[in-house]
C-alpha cells in the first residue's frame, strides 16, 4: 500500500465497527488480473460514513460483497486477509453464522430498487419476512415495527404502503423501502452499493438527505459505494478511492476532496463536470439566425384512453379503473433550434425528452403538430418518405453496449450509412477509417468487432457512425450516462470539438445539468412533456425562473463543494 499517508489518525475510525485487514479477493484464471481486491485495509466507525469511490472494474463492489460473503464462489473467493465485525472474523465464519449476520448485523442496499424487490410480494410482507426470520415477535408486533420503519424513512401513508406491491411505488419510494428493509433490524453496519445511481437527481438528493439523517439518528456505520464525487461531497466522513482492486487514497473527506494526493484521485475529481456554464463562443443571436429545427405544437400520446373492451367495463364497473391511462409524453411543445447551436434537453425520467428527440429523428411518429427540419415537414412521414432526410439528422445512442451490432465489423458499421446514401463501398470504407481516426481511434479498428472495445471507445464508434452520413443535426441521447466519469469528459469534449469543426447543430438530451452546462449554450427544461423553461445556459443557471428548474439545480449532489473548488481556483493561493 504505497502512496498512503503514513499518519494513521484519519485512516482509522475512533470506534471501529468494521475493520478490513489486508483483504485479497482472487479472480478466476481467465480474468485479466489475478486479484479483484488486493491488500485493502479499511475501517468504518460507529455513526460514520465511509465512501468507497472508483470506476467500473475497480473492485469496489466485490470488496463490499466479500464483507457479506456474497461472492459467486468458487469463481471469486477471499484469498487472504481478515474482515472483523466488532472483532469477529467474518472471512472464516461458517454459513449459519453468516445468515445471522446478514440482515441482522450488516445489511445491504442495492443499486436497482426494482430488481432488488420481489415483484410478487407486498413490500410490507417482504420486510415482515426479515423480522420473522431474525426475531421471535408476534405478527402484530412485527407489523408495528415495519410501519414504524416506513415512517422513519418518510414514506407517505405507511399503513397503506405496507400492502403495496413494488410496481405501485415510484423509484424513490422503492429505494426508501429498501432502506427501511436494511434498517429494520437496526444493524451495526449498512453497505449501500450505488443506491442512488438509478434515481432521478431530485429523488437522489432526497434519498441522500434521508440516509444521512437516519444514520445520525441511529448511529449506524455506513459504507457507501459510489462513482460520483458529488455524492461523496454530500455525505462522506471519510473516503477510500479504489483503482484496479487497490486502495490508492484513503483519508478524511476534506483531505481527499480538497488536497488529493494521488494523481488518479485528482483526475477523477477534475473529470466531474462543473456546474459553471461554459462561455459562449458567440452570443446566440436569435433575431437574425434561422432555425434549422422548428417545432410547433408537437404532441405524442402513449396508450389511448378509452381503449380496451369498454363494453366489459360497462358490465363490470370494477374493471373500468384498470384501463390504461393515456400518457402525454410530448404535450404541445414549441421549440426553435438555431443553425449551429447546441441545445440541451434537460429533464428527469418520464419528462418526454427522449420521446421528443425520437419524434425528431423519425423513430416515433408524432400524433399532431408540426416539426420542420431544414425546410421539410417531418410529422406524418412514413419510413420510406423519411429516407431522403436521413443524411440531415443523426443520433448518438445512450447505451454503447447495445447500439453496435455485435456481429458486424466496426468498419462496416460506420460505412453502412454512407453506402445507403449512395456512396461506393470502397470510398465508404476509406471514409470509415478516416472517421475512426477523427474520433480518436486507430484506423485498424475497422477490422475488429465491437466487443473488443471498451464503453468509451464504443461510444466513439457510435459517433463516427452518426457522422458518416455528414448530418447537419446531431441528436445525442444521454450519450455519456452509461460511461465512467473520466471517460465521460473525453467523450463530451470530443462531441464539442466535432460540433465546432463541422458546424453541427446539436440537440443534447441529458438528465444531468452539469453535463448540459459543459457542452451546451442553451438549455430547455422539460417536465411531464411540457417545456417549463428555456434560454441561455448561463442565464438559467444564474437566475432560474421556474420552480422546477430551481429544484433541479439545487438537487445536483456536491454543488457546494464544487462552488468552493471554483472559488479556490479563481483566487490564487498564497
Amino acid at each position, binding site marked *: 500500500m504505497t502512496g498512503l499517508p503514513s499518519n494513521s489518525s484519519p485512516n482509522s475510525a475512533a470506534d471501529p465497527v468494521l475493520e478490513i485487514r489486508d483483504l485479497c479477493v482472487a479472480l478466476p484464471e481467465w480474468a485479466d488480473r489475478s486479484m479483484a481486491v488486493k491488500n485493502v485495509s479499511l475501517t468504518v466507525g460507529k455513526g460514520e460514513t465511509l465512501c468507497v469511490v472508483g470506476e467500473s472494474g475497480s473492485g469496489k463492489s466485490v470488496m463490499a460483497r466479500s464483507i457479506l460473503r456474497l461472492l459467486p464462489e468458487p469463481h471469486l473467493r477471499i484469498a487472504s486477509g481478515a474482515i472483523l465485525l466488532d472483532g469477529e472474523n467474518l472471512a472464516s465464519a461458517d454459513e449459519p453464522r453468516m445468515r445471522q449476520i446478514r440482515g441482522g448485523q450488516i445489511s445491504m442496499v442495492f443499486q436497482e430498487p426494482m430488481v432488488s424487490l420481489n415483484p410478487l410480494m407486498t413490500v410490507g410482507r417482504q420486510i415482515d419476512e426479515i423480522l420473522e426470520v431474525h426475531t421471535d415477535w408476534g405478527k402484530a408486533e412485527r407489523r408495528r415495527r415495519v410501519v414504524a420503519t416506513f415512517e422513519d424513512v418518510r414514506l407517505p401513508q405507511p399503513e397503506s404502503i405496507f400492502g403495496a406491491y413494488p410496481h405501485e411505488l415510484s423509484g424513490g419510494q422503492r429505494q426508501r423501502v429498501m432502506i427501511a428493509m436494511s434498517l429494520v433490524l437496526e444493524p451495526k453496519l449498512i453497505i449501500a452499493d450505488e443506491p442512488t445511481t438509478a434515481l432521478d437527481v431530485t429523488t437522489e438528493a432526497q434519498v441522500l438527505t434521508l440516509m444521512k439523517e437516519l444514520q445520525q439518528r441511529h448511529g449506524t456505520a455506513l459504507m457507501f459505494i459510489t462513482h460520483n464525487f458529488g455524492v461523496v461531497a454530500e455525505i462522506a466522513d471519510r473516503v477510500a478511492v479504489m483503482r484496479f482492486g487497490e486502495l490508492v487514497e484513503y483519508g478524511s473527506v476534506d483531505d481527499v476532496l480538497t488536497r488529493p494526493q494521488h494523481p488518479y484521485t485528482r483526475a477523477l475529481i477534475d473529470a466531474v463536470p462543473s456546474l459553471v456554464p461554459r462561455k459562449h463562443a458567440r452570443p446566440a443571436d436569435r433575431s437574425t439566425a434561422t432555425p434549422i429545427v422548428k417545432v410547433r405544437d408537437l404532441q405524442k400520446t402513449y396508450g389511448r384512453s378509452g381503449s380496451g373492451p369498454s363494453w366489459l367495463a360497462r358490465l363490470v364497473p370494477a374493471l373500468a379503473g384498470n384501463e390504461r391511462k393515456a400518457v402525454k409524453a410530448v404535450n404541445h411543445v414549441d421549440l426553435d433550434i438555431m443553425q449551429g447551436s447546441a441545445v440541451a434537453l434537460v429533464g428527469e425520467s418520464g419528462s418526454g425528452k427522449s420521446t421528443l428527440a425520437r419524434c425528431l429523428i423519425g423513430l416515433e411518429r408524432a400524433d399532431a403538430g408540426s416539426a420542420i427540419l431544414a425546410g421539410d415537414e417531418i410529422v406524418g412521414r412514413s419510413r420510406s418518405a423519411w429516407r431522403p432526410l436521413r443524411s440531415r439528422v443523426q443520433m448518438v*445512442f445512450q447505451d454503447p453496449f447495445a447500439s453496435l451490432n455485435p456481429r458486424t465489423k466496426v468498419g462496416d458499421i460506420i460505412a453502412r450509412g454512407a453506402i445507403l446514401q449512395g456512396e461506393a463501398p470502397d470510398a465508404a470504407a476509406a471514409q470509415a477509417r478516416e472517421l475512426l481516426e477523427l474520433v480518436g481511434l486507430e484506423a485498424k479498428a475497422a477490422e475488429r468487432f465491437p466487443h473488443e472495445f471498451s464503453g468509451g471507445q464504443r461510444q466513439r464508434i457510435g459517433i463516427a457512425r452518426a457522422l458518416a452520413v455528414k448530418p447537419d443535426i446531431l441528436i445525442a441521447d444521454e450519450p455519456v450516462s452509461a460511461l465512467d466519469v473520466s471517460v465521460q469528459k473525453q467523450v463530451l469534449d470530443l462531441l464539442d470539438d466535432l460540433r465546432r469543426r463541422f458546424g453541427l447543430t446539436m440537440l443534447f438530451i441529458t438528465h444531468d445539468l452539469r453535463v448540459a452546462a459543459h457542452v451546451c449554450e442553451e438549455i430547455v427544461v422539460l417536465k411531464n412533456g411540457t417545456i417549463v423553461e428555456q434560454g441561455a445556459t448561463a442565464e438559467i443557471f444564474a437566475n432560474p425562473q421556474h420552480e422546477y428548474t430551481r429544484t433541479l439545480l439545487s438537487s445536483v449532489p456536491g454543488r457546494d463543494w464544487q462552488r468552493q473548488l471554483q472559488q479556490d481556483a479563481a483566487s490564487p493561493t498564497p
Partner: protein
Amino acid sequence: MTKPFWFRFLTNLRVLFGLTWLALVIIGAIAAPLIAPLDPFAISGQPFVRPFDGFLFGTDSLGRSVWSGLVHGARTTLLIAVIATLVAVAFGGLIGALAGFYGGRIDNVLMRVTEFFQTIPSFIFAILLVAVLAPSATSVVIAIATVSWPPIARIVRGEVMSLRSREFVQAAITLGEGDFEILFRQVLPNALSPLIVTGSLLVATAILTESALSFLGLGAPNFMSWGFMIGAGRSFLRDAWWLVAIPGIAILLTVLSINLVGEGLNDALNPRLRTP
C-alpha cells in the same frame, strides 16, 4: 470466456461422443454402395441367418442382408430428416421473423396460424398428410416439415422481437436501412445461435417421426429405412431379435448423438447459461 467457441465445443466429452457416432453414420450413408455392395432389397442368402454367421448382422425373413439395410437405411433416414428440418427452419424462421419484426396485426394473424398447427397432435397430423398425399419421399418430407415448423417460428419470433428494439436496430433505421436489410443484416445474424440449436435438435425429432411413419408402412416406398426394417421385423421379435434390435439401436444412438451435439452447441454458444 477467452476460450474460442470451437475449443469449448470440442472439449465437451458428450459432444465428442455424439460427433463420432454421427460421423460414422454419415460416412456409412455416403459410402453405402462401397461398404455394403448387396442390394438391401435383394434376396442374398438364407432367411434368419444369425449375426456374424456369414452376414455381419445376419439376414431377415426373406434372406435380405441386415447390414445392407442398415447402411442404405441411414441414407434415406438422414436425408429425409435433414431436408425436412431445413424446410421447417426456413419456413418457420420466415414466419417467425415476419411476425416478430412487424408485430401488430401481422403478428396476430401469423401466430394464430402457428397455434392452429400446434393444436393438432403432430404425429397424427403427419400420418394424415402422408396418407392424403400418397406415400413418397417428398410427402414424408412435407409431412415432417409441416408438423415441426411451429416451434421454430415461436423461437425466431421471440428473438426478433427482443432484437428489434435494440439500439443498433434503431441506429440502422435512422441510417435509412430498409425493412428487409434490417431483418437480414441486423436482426437475423444475432438470432442465429438459438436457431442452430433448435434446428439440430429438430433433426433428431425428424428421424423419430420418419422411422415411425416407415414403421407403419407410410414411409418412402422403394427406399430402405430404419423404421421400415423395424416394422418388417417386429413379427419375428421372439425368433430373430436382431431384426428389430439392430436398427432400433441405430436410431437410439443417432437421436442421442444429435441431442448431445445440440446441447453441446447450446452450451458453447451461450456460455453464461451454465456454470462450468
